């Protein structure tokens, strides 16, 4: 605050204000009134009123108009822009409502969980997993990620609600192959970490965290399989997820 006051009271700022409002109040006012919308009569009014103001009072009067322009012109423009965007906002809300009906809580929570475990598991595999496990787990893990992203995208597009989640035959094949592969890699990682910890070769927090994460990693394929089967979806045909 004191810095601001110092700036305001400095001779340079005073000189600049005097130059702007004192020597060229008309030019400054022309710039100031641009803050009002084009249709606002205040634009013409203020420019015309300037001639009625005595010359000595003009700098102060113009500075006052800056206050009005900022308070009313800019605020008015923002309010109008907000109002203009109202139909777009309503459409976006309606779109979200439609999607929310489809993306029910079961799916959304499931997807959040799988996404979280997926990202953490990926970091674990890429950073901490030993060589063989890294090679074994990476490919099925990536495949699961791709399928998960695809299902999510399809689910967002898909309407109307109440239909099974869009897990295709290919998705289910990926679950069937990649799911067990991830589970196997996870078991290997778990055993490896336990042996390392037990033998005392590794006792860093990273290993402990990795071991805990290993227990979570199967959540991703299992949760995806669970999500692809809707409650009450007894019949399974083409495009319908199979019972796991």
């Amino acid at each position, binding site marked *: 605050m004191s810095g601001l006051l110092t700036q305001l009271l400095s001779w340079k700022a005073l000189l600049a204000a005097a130059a702007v409002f004192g020597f060229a109040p008309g030019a400054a006012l022309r710039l100031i009134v641009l803050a009002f919308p084009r249709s606002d009569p205040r634009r013409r009014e203020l420019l*015309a*009123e300037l001639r009625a103001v005595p010359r000595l009072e003009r700098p102060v009067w113009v500075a*006052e108009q800056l206050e009005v322009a900022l308070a*009313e012109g800019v605020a008015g423009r923002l309010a109008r822009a907000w109002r203009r965007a109202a139909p777009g906002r309503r459409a976006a809300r309606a779109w979200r409502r439609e999607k929310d009906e489809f993306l029910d809580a079961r799916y959304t929570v499931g997807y959040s969980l799988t996404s979280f475990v997926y990202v953490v598991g990926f970091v674990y595999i890429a950073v901490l997993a030993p060589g063989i496990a890294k090679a074994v787990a990476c490919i099925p893990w990536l495949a699961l990620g791709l399928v998960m992203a695809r299902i999510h995208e399809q689910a967002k597009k898909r309407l109307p609600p109440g239909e099974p989640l869009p897990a295709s035959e290919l998705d289910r094949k990926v679950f069937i192959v990649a799911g067990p592969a991830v589970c196997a890699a996870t078991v290997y990682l778990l055993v490896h970490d336990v042996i390392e910890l037990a033998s005392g070769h590794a006792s860093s927090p990273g290993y402990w965290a990795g071991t805990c994460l290993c227990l979570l990693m199967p959540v991703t394929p299992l949760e995806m399989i669970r999500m692809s089967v809707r409650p009450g979806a007894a019949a399974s045909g083409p495009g319908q997820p199979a019972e796991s």
Partner: protein
Amino acid sequence: MRRTNALVAVAAGLMSDPGGRHWGYELSRRSGVRSGVMYPVLQRMLDEGWLADGWEDQAEAGREKRPPRRYYEVTDLGRSELGALAARARADGKPARLAGGPRPGWAAG
């Protein structure tokens, strides 16, 4: 409309000559309200229908080589509303400036 000192002062300024035309700067001087505050008040009065606005004749302004100015006139509705405001201010014992009394050093016209 919320009754502020600025509103009362502008109302008093307008009611000092209820049948005449009022110009922004003169009204600001007469009411003693800064123009930064007065214009929003005038806009509210216009919205309420207490005032009507118009533009000075082009030819008249052209003779003085200046752009035409915007003027404000008090409507019939405004006359009763603004009159009541000024009267209430006088009854409340507001300063002369707010209640429509003459301002020192200012000749209304």
